[in-house]
């Protein structure tokens, strides 16, 4: 099928180093109050191919609520509760001089996969930075979901086990640690949409 002229996608360009006032003027890193009994903290850092922290990145996350429902009309499973006033499912964080970012959120519930099964609880992640001409996309999975993770079609599609492990947080005290390596031996698994 030929597409109508003028309907080809607009190319991506880097976010550059000067986005902070426009994109991070409000703190969007707490999707829920840290006092919420189910609140979890996700902490990590972004590193480049030389192992140096990336201090000018922006991380965005998108996730379902605790019941596994997305706060979007396109998720119309009305049997599942929705809490748009208290949980948007969207978060944003910059990185600091150490490349560090953090989010306070809740662990999402499982959501359907394309084959009638369920995906393990996961969070969608976009990383933008100077030097990234387009975002990189990854996912955060949880280590206490061994069975669900083993059955997750997307996690299982990452055949290289080392690469697959980069998608699962590990415990760091009370927090979930999720580091993002843009390049190199330890590179995080990134997805093509």
């Amino acid at each position, binding site marked *: 099928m030929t597409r109508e002229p003028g309907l080809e996608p607009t190319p991506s360009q880097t976010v550059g*180093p000067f986005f902070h006032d426009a994109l991070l003027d409000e703190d969007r890193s707490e999707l829920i109050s840290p006092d919420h009994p189910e609140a979890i903290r996700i902490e990590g850092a972004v590193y480049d191919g*030389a192992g140096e922290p990336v201090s000018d990145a922006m991380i965005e996350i998108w996730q379902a609520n605790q019941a596994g429902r997305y706060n979007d009309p396109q998720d119309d499973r009305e049997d599942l509760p929705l809490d748009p006033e208290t949980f948007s499912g969207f978060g944003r964080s910059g990185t600091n001089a150490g490349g560090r970012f953090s989010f306070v959120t809740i662990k999402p519930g499982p959501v359907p996969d394309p084959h009638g099964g369920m995906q393990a609880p996961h969070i969608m992640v976009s990383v933008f930075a100077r030097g990234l001409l387009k975002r990189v996309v990854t996912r955060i999975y949880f280590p206490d979901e061994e069975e669900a993770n083993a059955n997750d079609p997307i996690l299982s599609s990452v055949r290289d086990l080392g690469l697959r492990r980069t998608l699962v947080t590990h415990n760091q005290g009370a927090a979930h640690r999720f580091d993002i390596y843009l390049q190199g031996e330890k590179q995080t698994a990134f997805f*093509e*949409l």
Partner: protein
Amino acid sequence: MRQESTDETVSQRPEGNDQPPYLYPDYVATRLRAPKKPLIILPRTLSDITGPAYGRDPIGELDNDLTRQHTGEPLGERIIVTGRVLDGDGRPVKSSLIEVWQANAAGRYAHHLDRHPAPLDPNFSGAGRCLTDDEGRYRFVTVKPGAYPWKNHHNAWRPAHIHFSLFGSSFRSRLITQMYFPGDPLFEQDPIFQSVRDREAQKRMISSFDLETTEPEWALGYKFDIVLEGRDATSMEDRR
């Protein structure tokens, strides 16, 4: 290091020329930041055909006028930037958040890391946002940003540009790009612009002067339409 794989979930698709590659060595910062392992193909699921409601938040009345955020008016050439946001099927992207940021007319960002010795403008912060209307239309009032030098290579200058951040209807349609101005002599030496190899695709990042948008005795008008990745599964397949 070559990875042999017959795994259909690993992308074997050559990178198209209408989106930039991750690694574009002329843009030096990509050398240590571009991922080099093969990408994993992500099938469409509810997780990515949905997207944040961020754009449904209230927007301030003056958020789309970068010339009225301070007591005085910023220096520079006042411009109106307007256009439509469409998905890959040509449908308007409605009520969707657009965030913009830019240098001032002298080519300086109001940002602590910008060391270019051009004057800051006390009347210009250079950040704005707005929502698209039911036809996918948006409109900003601002001043034309200046070109500025950077340290990528000897005598490197960025062409004048406005950064655009868009959400669209789903996680898949998220886009951050830059809008350029027609006829800029700096395109040829700018590796960020040139990272998009296809000439036609390059043109999709350049606004056009528009006399209809131009307001007499007040401001020049530029049109910039943006096409996001489609929400429709069949159109995605057709593209590949």
